[in-house]
C-alpha cells in the first residue's frame, strides 16, 4: 500500500514536469562555453532565433569553459540525458567525431529539408569541421590568430608597420628595445602552441604530422621535430633570453601586457577584438601573422574556436528544432551580425561578401585580416588543418616540453624530439582505442 502511494506520487511528479513542455513550444538545450561579452552576444543570437518563429525555443546554458562543457556533456551523455546541442572547441574534433554519440549536422539539416550551401563555407573552416567532405559540426565561432601591434611604438622607432617576415620583424623588435621605446617587444600568448607552432606550420607550409596531418588516417605521427618548428622554438627562446619576449604567467593575462602598452606586439586570436577595443589604452592595430623569408607566398592559417555538435538520443521533433536553429545560425545575416559583434570570422563567403558590401571593413579594417588570412591561396596538406586524436593531450605534452626549453633544461631539438615521442605514444593510444573505425580518405 505504502509502495503504491509512493509510486503514485512519483508519477504525478513526473507528469508535472512533462505537461508544460508539451503544451508550449518545443524546447531544446544548447550548452556552450562563452562567457563575458561573448556570452552576452551568444545569448543575443539565441534570442533572435526564439523571436524569429513561434514553434521552437532554444535555451542557451553556459557550462563554464570548453573543458567544463566537454566534461558536462560527457557526464550527461553517460547518464543518458545529453543536451541537444553542445559547443566544443576545435581540438576536441576527433574525440567528438569518433564518439558515436553525435549526429552529423549536414545529415541532419538535409534530412530536415534545409538547403544550407555547405560549399560556400570558407575553405579552412569547412575542412576543419568536415569528415569525408560532409560537415559533422556547424562552425559557430571560428577564429584565427593575427598579429596585433602598438602603432606608436613602431612609429617612434621609425617603422610604418610590422614587417611581413619573422627575420625582418625580429630586427624591428630588437630596434624598438634598443631605442628604449618599449621594455617588451612581444608577449608570449597563452595558446602559443596554436598560434606560434601549429598555425606557423600551416602558414609556412611545414608538415605537422604524417598522413596529411592526420586527414588520411589514425596512423598519423607527428613530424614537427624535423621542420622549421624547431628553429621557431629556438627563436622564441632567444627572444626570451634577450628580453624581447616576456611571459605574463599566472595571475595576469598576456593580453593585459599588450593593451596596457607594456609590450609592443601580441599574437592572438581575432576573437579578442571585443576585449582589445574595450580595454586598450593604446593606439593599436593588427596585421597578418609573419612568415619565414624563404617561404613565399605564405599559405592560409588554420582556425580555432568552436562548433555546434548535435547529440544523439533525442526525439524527432527535438531534432526539428535543432535543425531550424542551425539553419538560422548558418544564414549570412546571422553570420554578419556575429562577426561584427564579436570579431570571430564569418563562416561563409556570402556572409563575408555581405559585410564587405555594407562597408563594414572601412570602419573596421582589422576585422578583415582574419578572413583574408584564412582564405588566401588554396589550402594544401600542410595548411588544411589538423586531424589528431587526443589533440589536447598531445598539445599539453608539447607545451611542457617548450617550457623546458624556456627554463633552459632542454635544447629546442631535444625538447621537440621528446614532444613528438610523447605525442606519438598518445596518438597510438587513440589509434588503438578507435581501431576498426575507418577514417581513410577523409578529405
Amino acid at each position, binding site marked *: 500500500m505504502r509502495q503504491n502511494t509512493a509510486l503514485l506520487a512519483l508519477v504525478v511528479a513526473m507528469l508535472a514536469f512533462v505537461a508544460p513542455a508539451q503544451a508550449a513550444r518545443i524546447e531544446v538545450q544548447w550548452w556552450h562555453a562563452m562567457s563575458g561579452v561573448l556570452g552576452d552576444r551568444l545569448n543575443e543570437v539565441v534570442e533572435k532565433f526564439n523571436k524569429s518563429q513561434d514553434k521552437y525555443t532554444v535555451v542557451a546554458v553556459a557550462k563554464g569553459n570548453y*573543458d567544463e562543457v*566537454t*566534461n558536462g556533456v*560527457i557526464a550527461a*551523455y*553517460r547518464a543518458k540525458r545529453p543536451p541537444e546541442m553542445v559547443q566544443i572547441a576545435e581540438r576536441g574534433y576527433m*574525440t567528438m567525431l*569518433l*564518439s*558515436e*554519440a553525435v549526429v552529423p549536422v549536414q545529415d541532419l539539416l538535409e534530412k530536415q529539408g534545409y538547403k544550407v550551401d555547405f560549399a560556400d563555407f570558407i575553405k579552412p573552416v569547412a575542412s576543419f569541421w568536415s569528415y569525408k567532405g560532409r560537415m559533422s559540426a556547424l562552425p559557430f565561432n571560428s577564429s584565427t590568430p593575427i598579429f596585433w601591434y602598438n602603432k606608436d611604438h613602431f612609429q617612434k622607432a621609425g617603422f610604418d608597420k610590422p614587417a611581413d617576415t619573422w627575420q625582418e620583424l625580429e630586427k624591428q623588435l630588437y630596434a624598438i628595445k634598443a631605442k628604449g621605446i618599449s621594455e617588451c617587444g612581444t608577449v608570449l600568448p597563452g595558446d602559443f602552441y596554436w598560434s606560434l607552432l601549429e598555425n606557423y606550420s600551416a602558414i609556412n607550409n611545414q608538415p605537422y604530422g604524417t598522413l596529411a596531418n592526420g586527414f588520411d588516417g589514425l596512423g598519423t605521427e607527428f613530424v614537427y621535430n624535423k621542420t622549421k618548428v624547431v628553429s621557431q622554438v629556438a627563436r622564441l627562446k632567444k627572444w*626570451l633570453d634577450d628580453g624581447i619576449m*616576456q*611571459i*605574463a*604567467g*599566472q*595571475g*595576469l593575462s598576456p593580453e593585459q*601586457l599588450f593593451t596596457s602598452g*607594456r609590450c609592443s606586439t601580441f599574437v592572438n586570436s581575432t576573437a579578442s577584438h571585443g576585449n582589445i577595443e574595450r580595454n586598450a589604452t593604446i593606439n593599436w592595430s593588427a596585421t597578418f601573422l609573419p612568415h619565414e623569408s624563404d617561404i613565399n607566398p605564405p599559405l592560409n592559417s588554420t582556425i580555432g574556436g568552436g562548433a555546434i555538435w548535435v547529440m544523439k538520443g533525442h526525439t524527432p521533433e527535438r531534432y526539428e528544432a535543432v535543425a531550424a536553429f542551425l539553419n538560422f545560425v548558418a544564414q549570412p545575416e546571422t553570420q554578419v551580425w556575429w562577426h561584427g559583434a564579436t570579431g570571430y570570422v564569418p563562416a561563409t563567403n556570402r556572409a563575408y561578401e555581405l559585410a564587405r558590401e555594407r562597408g563594414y571593413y572601412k570602419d573596421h579594417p582589422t576585422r578583415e585580416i582574419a578572413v583574408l588570412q584564412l582564405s588566401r591561396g588554396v589550402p594544401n596538406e600542410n595548411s588544411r588543418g589538423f586531424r589528431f586524436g*587526443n589533440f*589536447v*593531450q598531445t598539445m*599539453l*605534452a608539447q*607545451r*611542457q*616540453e617548450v*617550457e*623546458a626549453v*624556456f*627554463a633552459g*633544461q632542454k635544447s629546442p631539438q631535444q625538447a621537440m624530439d621528446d614532444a613528438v615521442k*610523447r605525442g606519438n605514444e598518445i596518438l597510438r*593510444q587513440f589509434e*588503438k*582505442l*578507435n581501431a576498426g573505425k575507418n577514417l581513410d580518405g577523409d578529405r
Partner: protein
Amino acid sequence: MRSSAIGRDVAVPSAQPRSAAASVSHRAAARKKARPAQEAGLKRANFGEGPGLPTLLLLPQLLILLFFFFIPSLRALTQSVLLSDPFGTTVQFVWFDNFKALFANGEYRQSMWVTLLFTVGQNALTLSVALVLAFATDHIIKGRSVYRTIILLPYAIAPAIAGILWAFLFNPAVGPLAHVLHGLGIAWDPNLNPNHALILVTLAASWKHICYDYIFLVVGLLAVPVSLMEAAAVDGAGPIRRFVSIGLPMLGPTVFFLAVMNFIYGFFETFAIIDAVTKGGPAGATNILVYKVYVDGFVNLDLGSSAAQSVLLMSFALLCTLLQFRYFDRKVNYGV
C-alpha cells in the same frame, strides 16, 4: 549482559595462543588491560536487543561513505583497467596497461618526485610556522583574540582566490613582492624557473594551512598543565626553554596528528592552489599527483590513466599514513 561482554573481550586474545609462554603473559596482560577499562566506568550505550537501532543510526554515515567513497573507489578501480572513449561508447579491457604506462613514463616519475618535495616542504613549513605562532600566542597579553583572528583569516579564503593572490603578488612582471625580490638581486621568475614555481606553490599552500595547524596547537598548549610550567619557571627556565622542554613534548600527539593531516592536505586539497598559481608548470615542475589526475581525466579525457593514477595516489596516501603510524606513533607520548 555486561559480564558477558567482558568475557568476550577477554576471550579474544586468548583464542589465538602462539607459544605457551607468550600466550600466558599475553593473556595476563590483556586481562589486566581490559578489566580496568571496563570497570573504570566507561559508559556502554544500551540499544536494546538486535541490530535494528544501531544499524539505523549508522545508516546515514554508511550511505555517505557508500556514495562518496565506496562507489567512486570501485568505479576508479574498474576504470583503471579499461581503455575507454570518454563517452563510454568504446571500451577495451587492457589489464594493467594503464599502470605499466604510468611507471614507464618519465612525466609520472617527475610528478611523484615533485609531490614528495612539495608535501614534505609544505608540512615542515606549515608546522614550524604554526608552532612559532602558537608559542607567541601564549605570550601575548593585549589583543590576543585579534591576533588569533588575523592568523585564522586565511582559512576562510577559498583556495583558488588564495592561489590567484599569491600568483599576482609574485608575478615577475607586476607583482610587488616579486619587485622586492628583484630589488634584492634575485632573478625571481616562477614562470620560467621550475624551482621558483615549486617554492611559490609550497608557500601558498602552507600559508593557507598554517591556521589549521595553529588552532590545534593553541588548544594543545592550553591543555599543558599550568603547574608544570610554573614549576619550571620557579626552577629558572625561560619561556623558550619551557616551551621546548615541556610544551613541545606534551604537544606530541597533536603535532603527529597535524603531520598526518598536512600530508593528506598536500596530497589532495592543494589542487586549487596549483591550478591558480602555476597550472602544474613550468615544464611540469609543480605538476603534483592530484593535479595530474585532474588534467589527465578532465582536460585530456584519458579516463583509464586518470583512474589508475587516482588508485595509485590513494595507495600512496594510505601507505604514507600507515608508515607514519608505524614509525612515529610509537615515539609519541600520549600520557599526560
